[in-house]
């Protein structure tokens, strides 16, 4: 890396990249506003909006009353009026009061008005388990939103992607559900450019190349998946192609099929419950489009079909490297 490039990057955690991404977009476009509970003076309960209030003031960084439907419903109106609201849900487990506004209005505004109004709204929510949080703080319900036409669903897994995908989400003319893997908010750092940049929505990233088994995952599960893949390669000679989907709607069908056609074997890893989860959609896509390449049943390594447990048992619930490696091995040996 040249000296010039080194000067223009920072070593950021994922949550710092959220903050940096918001900052960059707010500086770039006066119409971008941030609103939610405790996002202002307090800088967000995870500090994802730290310093934005001081920088941009109370008209652009707005502490709202404690009301999720209120936050998203007013954001729909503001978005229709020409602003670009970025609404924070403090935890994904509290998004349900806003569900009606997201599904019934944000997702449909363009269709219902025959293209007159778009809803350039971003709903950010920390999602997922593994941080010893109380009840209702660990949910991973991306499938609800990926099922809904009119929405886009994005889940980054690295600081670099976080900043670039968040910029894309804010600039996107359609509503984007932007889910942040809070388990890895501060787990590691990565060089992130100071300048604003975008990472395209709808494109998966291959994190590791291999010819034996395709493993599809996203968000917080990318790290245990990579850990399993490295161990299998080192100890058993099984080479995985690890694809981080990054966007769950629209899915990158091409990346999924390209990888699968290379390996003929697939494992899908997510922490959300198994039934009705995105793994089912990815499996069906493979069945419809690439059956003749298939060498083994597609394996799903997921959370269980139970409410997310209190933290004494959450490690049993969440897929980790050993469980993921079992799934890959089983598929490889079929």
């Amino acid at each position, binding site marked *: 890396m040249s000296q010039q490039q080194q000067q223009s990057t920072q070593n950021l955690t994922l949550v710092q990249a959220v903050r940096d991404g918001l900052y960059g977009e707010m500086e770039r476009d006066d119409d971008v506003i941030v609103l939610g509970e405790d996002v202002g003076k307090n800088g967000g309960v995870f500090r994802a909006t730290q310093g934005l209030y001081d920088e941009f003031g109370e008209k652009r960084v707005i502490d709202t009353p404690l009301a999720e439907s209120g936050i998203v419903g007013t954001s*729909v*109106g503001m978005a229709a*009026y020409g602003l670009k609201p970025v609404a924070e849900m403090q935890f994904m487990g509290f998004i349900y009061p806003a569900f009606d506004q997201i599904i019934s209005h944000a997702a449909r505004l363009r269709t219902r008005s025959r293209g007159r109004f778009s809803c350039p709204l971003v709903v950010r929510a920390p999602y997922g388990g593994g941080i010893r949080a109380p009840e209702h703080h660990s949910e991973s319900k991306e499938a609800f939103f990926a099922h809904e036409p009119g929405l886009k669903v994005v889940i980054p897994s690295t600081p670099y992607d976080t900043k670039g995908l968040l910029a894309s989400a804010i600039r996107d003319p359609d509503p984007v559900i932007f889910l942040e893997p809070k388990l890895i908010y501060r787990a590691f750092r990565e060089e992130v450019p100071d300048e604003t940049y975008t990472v395209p929505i709808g494109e998966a990233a291959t994190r590791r190349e291999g010819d034996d088994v395709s493993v599809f995952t996203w968000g917080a599960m990318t790290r245990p998946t990579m850990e399993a893949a490295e161990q299998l390669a080192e100890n058993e000679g099984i080479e995985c192609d690890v694809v981080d989907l990054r966007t769950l709607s629209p899915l990158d069908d091409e990346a999924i099929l390209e990888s699968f056609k290379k390996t003929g074997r697939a494992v899908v890893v997510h922490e959300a419950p198994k039934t009705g989860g995105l793994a089912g959609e990815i499996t069906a896509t493979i069945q419809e489009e690439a059956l003749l390449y298939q060498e083994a049943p597609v394996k799903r390594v997921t959370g269980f079909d139970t409410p997310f447990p209190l933290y004494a048992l959450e490690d049993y619930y969440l897929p980790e490297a050993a469980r993921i490696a079992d799934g890959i091995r089983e598929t490889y040996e079929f």
Partner: protein
Amino acid sequence: MSTLQRDPREQVRVLDEDGRVVDGATVPDLDDDQMVEMYRNMKLARHFDQRAVSLQRQGRMGTYPPLSGQEGAQIGSAMALDEEDWMVPSYREHGAAYARGLKLHQTLRYWMGDERGNELRDLNIFPVAVPIATQVLHASGLAWGAKLKGDRKAFMCYFGDGATSEGDFHEGLNFAGVFDVPAVFFCNNNQWAISVPRERQTASETIAQKAVAYGFEGVQVDGMDPLAVYKVAREAVEKAKADDPEDLRPTLIEAVQYRFGAHTTADDPSVYRDDDEVERWKAKDPIPRLESYLYEQGVLDQERIDAVQQSVEEEVADAIETAESLERPEPAAIFEHVYEGMPKRLQQQRQYLEQLRERHGDEELLE
């Protein structure tokens, strides 16, 4: 004292049930042409409504929510808006939307199941909201957006008495009060949320007094008195656009009225309310009230009344013809406007639908 500053339990009235100005009331400052326009808009809304119900009965239109009885509230409030202002309707504001410039054939198209009825490009009207009270938040957000952008516009949001039980009503008014947005919340209290009476929606004596809890003014008005509705709505609109930002505040208006017909054409009101009640409210019908007043004032004579009746009948007939003469929308329209750009899966599904049509022909496919 502004009309808005009175006790929210006292109803504002200008005309009594016979169309005479009540003691101490002031008639709003509308010239003769505006008065006749108000009268004509109400007559048109009534006739349109009767024809729309009939079209549904004949199988020429889908389920339709009638408005008869609510013309005074709809027309009086919509005419209180200035051109730059917005209305955020529920699903029953056909009359109010007409007064804001929406063509009747568009309204018919929407209820005939054609999305093109929702194309309101140049009008400051937000799309119809079918879920209850969700639009209250959109109105607060639109008004908030205008305020943040430094625009001076009022946003009139319509909803029914049932909507006041929803969380979104509370959240919408709460946000509006906290952020002082230029919204006017207009509750069409028509006594029945389908089959559940107003008394089962809230234990509050009035809906208007709920505004106290949000820190702004609430006013109850006789919703079947178009002049009283115009008066309070106009004051609320002016307050939303006050010169001094300190005076810019939202308002809640409760317009007490009655829907003469069913909730929708799929509903049978005889199951939950008796004829006596309907007759009692019909005595308050807003149209003859304004007609008598204008007749007494010499603004209307029988000839003019007949001419208005004839012209609204012609206009509605033309609108029905226009709506029915339009060809079905193209099937591919289903896929348009879901996203700004069409994702690959949607492109593939659109192609698949076209292949199905080619293979089978529409007749076989839709059998």
